[in-house]
């Protein structure tokens, strides 16, 4: 009995010692993973602040020596010479409406799908779920034809002069809708039925119930969707170069401008790195400020294509 107890306490102690070794191994592997994950971005950030002569001669890791020098010239250069300031504004002008429009239209549709009865409702919603994965590549040839005929591509005249981004606003709306409707309908469908029933008994119309009840109660889902769509549009390259045209430089957003710079700046890494960081600054701020909502948008829509 005693021997048995001693034996088992020895095993426990050995297990604990082995366990603390394992804890150290666990911490080390996590730190290693995180270092690997951060190293690429670190290199970029460091080089964007180094003089051109240094960047082409020595690796970014040499800045940890006391002789290293830093400069803001690269940022000044890309803002003045490479049109990054203009591209930043373009990105804003594209992203804000291309976020507001789909979220609003999807909220109307989601409310109808969740709280109004009509024939074919389930079938239509299943179709929306199917559309989640349609590749954008499969849609651009016919849509470009229509856009060219109407004259709202990047090279178009007429209305494209006043609203140069109309084509991308509409395209991002169309492409963003399946996910937006899916996410909002699932959330609105989970709201308590009694609230809408008692509002209806009190004589509230559909618009009142939507604006006064459904929308305020869906703020978490709306926030998640807005942030998700904002980052999606801000980071988009494909829609921009297809509907504005990779050749229409002054009308392009940051992503497309940066992609063009990788060709024209080739080995001028310091400028490329500064430009890359400018394109990431806003998403990083949004990400850190609203991380919780962003993650919720991602997990809520794991089936988005």
């Amino acid at each position, binding site marked *: 009995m005693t021997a048995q107890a001693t034996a088992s306490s020895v095993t426990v102690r050995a297990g604990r010692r082995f366990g603390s070794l394992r804890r150290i191994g666990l911490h080390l592997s996590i730190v290693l993973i995180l270092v690997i994950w951060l190293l690429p971005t670190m290199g970029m950030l460091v080089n964007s602040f180094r003089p051109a002569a240094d960047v082409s001669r020595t690796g970014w890791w040499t800045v940890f020596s006391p002789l290293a020098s830093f400069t803001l010239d690269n940022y000044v250069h890309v803002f003045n010479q490479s049109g990054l300031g203009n591209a930043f504004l373009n990105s804003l002008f594209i992203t804000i409406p291309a976020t507001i429009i789909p979220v609003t*239209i999807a909220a109307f549709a989601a409310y109808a799908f969740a709280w109004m009865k009509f024939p074919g409702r389930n079938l239509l919603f299943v179709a929306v779920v199917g559309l989640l*994965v*349609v590749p954008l590549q*499969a*849609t651009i040839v*016919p849509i470009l034809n229509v856009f060219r005929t109407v004259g709202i591509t990047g090279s178009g005249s007429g209305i494209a002069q006043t609203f140069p981004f109309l084509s991308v606003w509409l395209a991002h709306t169309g492409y963003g809708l399946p996910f937006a409707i899916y996410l909002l309908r699932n959330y609105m469908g989970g709201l308590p039925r009694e609230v809408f029933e008692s509002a209806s008994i009190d004589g509230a119309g559909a618009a009142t119930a939507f604006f006064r009840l459904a929308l305020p109660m869906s703020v978490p889902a709306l926030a998640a969707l807005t942030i998700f769509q904002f980052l999606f549009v801000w980071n988009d390259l494909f829609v921009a170069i297809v509907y504005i045209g990779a050749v229409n430089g002054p009308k392009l957003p940051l992503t497309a401008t*940066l992609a063009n710079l990788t060709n024209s700046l080739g080995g001028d890494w310091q400028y490329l790195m500064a430009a890359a960081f400018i394109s990431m600054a806003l998403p990083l701020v949004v990400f850190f400020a609203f991380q919780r909502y962003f993650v919720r948008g991602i*997990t809520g829509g794991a089936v*988005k294509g």
Partner: protein
Amino acid sequence: MDPRIVTAGVAVIGVPAVLIGYILGVEWLLRLAPERRQARIRPWLWILPAILLLGFFLVYPTIATAVRSLQDKTAAANFIGLANYQYFFSSDATLVALRNSFIWLVLLTAFVVGGGILTAVLFDRVRYEPVAKSLLFLPLAISFVGAGVIWKFMFDYQLAGHPQIGTLNGILQGIGQPPAAFLLNPPGNTVWLILVGAWIWTGFAMVILSAALKGISPELLEAARVDGANELQVFRAITLPLLMPTIAVVATTMIITALKAFDVVYVMGNGAFDTDVLALDMYHQLFDFGQPGRAAAVATVLVVLIIPVMILNVRRFQAQEAIR
């Protein structure tokens, strides 16, 4: 006045006003109709803008693209049967793109699902889990173009004897190895590009799998440990099977992501040195070679490859609805 200021004004004030005005207008018009008809018409008017946009941007063009894939490159679009598909399955360039897309599909899914499970399980055991999670998740917030630029620099290669400024070749130099031309030699270069994709997407898989992991009852795991199972056995017999539905969701999402891979390949060499993939080949056919018919054929192949995933998603959704 800068025309962009007008645009900005329209964008921020005009657009929401029009949209809200639409719903208020609909409700005002409906008041003119008898009450029973109101309830019948109302839902259709509320979903009308969405239906029109979905129809124009997704349904119509997908069908029209399939039709376009049977036509030649001229504006007259004469029907030429399956000639574009014949070209697709006989041209070396498109076959390389097809092969690479399959490599993307297999490896990106494997890397992201594997990495996601590993990190979710590891991070679950430490107190600084939130910090670790957001650092791993960070690449998903930046653009794929930005990620492409960052990694192009990671892979930067100078001839032996010249100073290596790229991070990876710097490391090779540090341990006395000759520099490697990561992005120049097929088919290994495609694998390096896929690793960039995995760098971006692993955080996504980790967040979703981690949420599922937290849903597993701790009592169940503890019971197995009390019965003498070691951590690996607990993982294989309990955790992994319970994670399976979530792994399936992540895997199907990654399959679609891999098939649509475009930005990273476009920025890191534009498909040169046999790194081309279907989505990028389609773009080249359309904009560089003036071949809308062939581009439509590539796009249609993409759609056909994605249809099984679409069916799977719809089935999964219907199963979820059934238990709601």
